[in-house]
């Protein structure tokens, strides 16, 4: 299935893109993270090594809705989903 990832702030600077489509085989977030971490230096920002889950300060947004689970295996994704990982906001 195909999902689209939106990049903001650091993520945009690191990837050099605003958004990008990925083909993944499993219907959970882990499959996507593996591809992302292989392609870009994003692991240290997104991944909490100690607790083996997504960092608590990262907001996971799927189809413009916040997801509150942090274990990628528990986060289902479907074909056509739009996904974003957000660092804490800082309005002007």
């Amino acid at each position, binding site marked *: 299935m195909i999902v689209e990832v939106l990049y903001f702030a650091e993520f*945009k*600077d690191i990837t050099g893109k605003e958004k990008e489509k990925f083909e993944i085989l499993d219907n959970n977030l882990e499959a996507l993270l593996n591809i992302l971490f292989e392609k870009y230096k994003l692991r240290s920002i997104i991944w909490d090594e100690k607790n083996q889950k997504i960092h608590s300060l990262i907001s996971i947004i799927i189809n413009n809705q916040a997801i509150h689970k942090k274990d990628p295996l528990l986060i289902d994704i479907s074909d056509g989903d739009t996904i974003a990982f957000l660092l804490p*906001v800082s309005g*002007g």
Partner: protein
Amino acid sequence: MHYNEDFVKSGIYNKGEIVLESIIKSVKANPKIKKVGSIHAFTGIVRDSSINGKPVARMKIDAYDELANKSIFEICERLKQEKGIMDVKIVHLKGEFELSEDLVYVVVASAHRKEGFDVISKAVDMYKKEIAVWKREDFNDGTSEWIH
């Protein structure tokens, strides 16, 4: 709902798309304007130093428009419920900004000034915490930092 041509929607705009004057004009075109005694406006601009004193040369603002627009709408609707508040507008710009350029506008119209001062200060605190907008400070020494 029918709006007149002066109507400005709160939300994320590109730099250069909107000026404070238009937002105030929009507030003045609100049908409840006759009940308003004070209009409060906040403009956030690019300061030449970061919060810890590092010299800033310019700034970049990025936004997740759909999310930010939703949060801005919710903040405005919530604050318009407060007593004596007739209108609340939040407009956040995005793009690349030089020193002293406008980054964000908040406009509140209230029956009396006390409520207006309270709510505009609340609106600023809320947009800073709740909307999907990020700023990157580009320092004089050539380094950059996204603020969180």
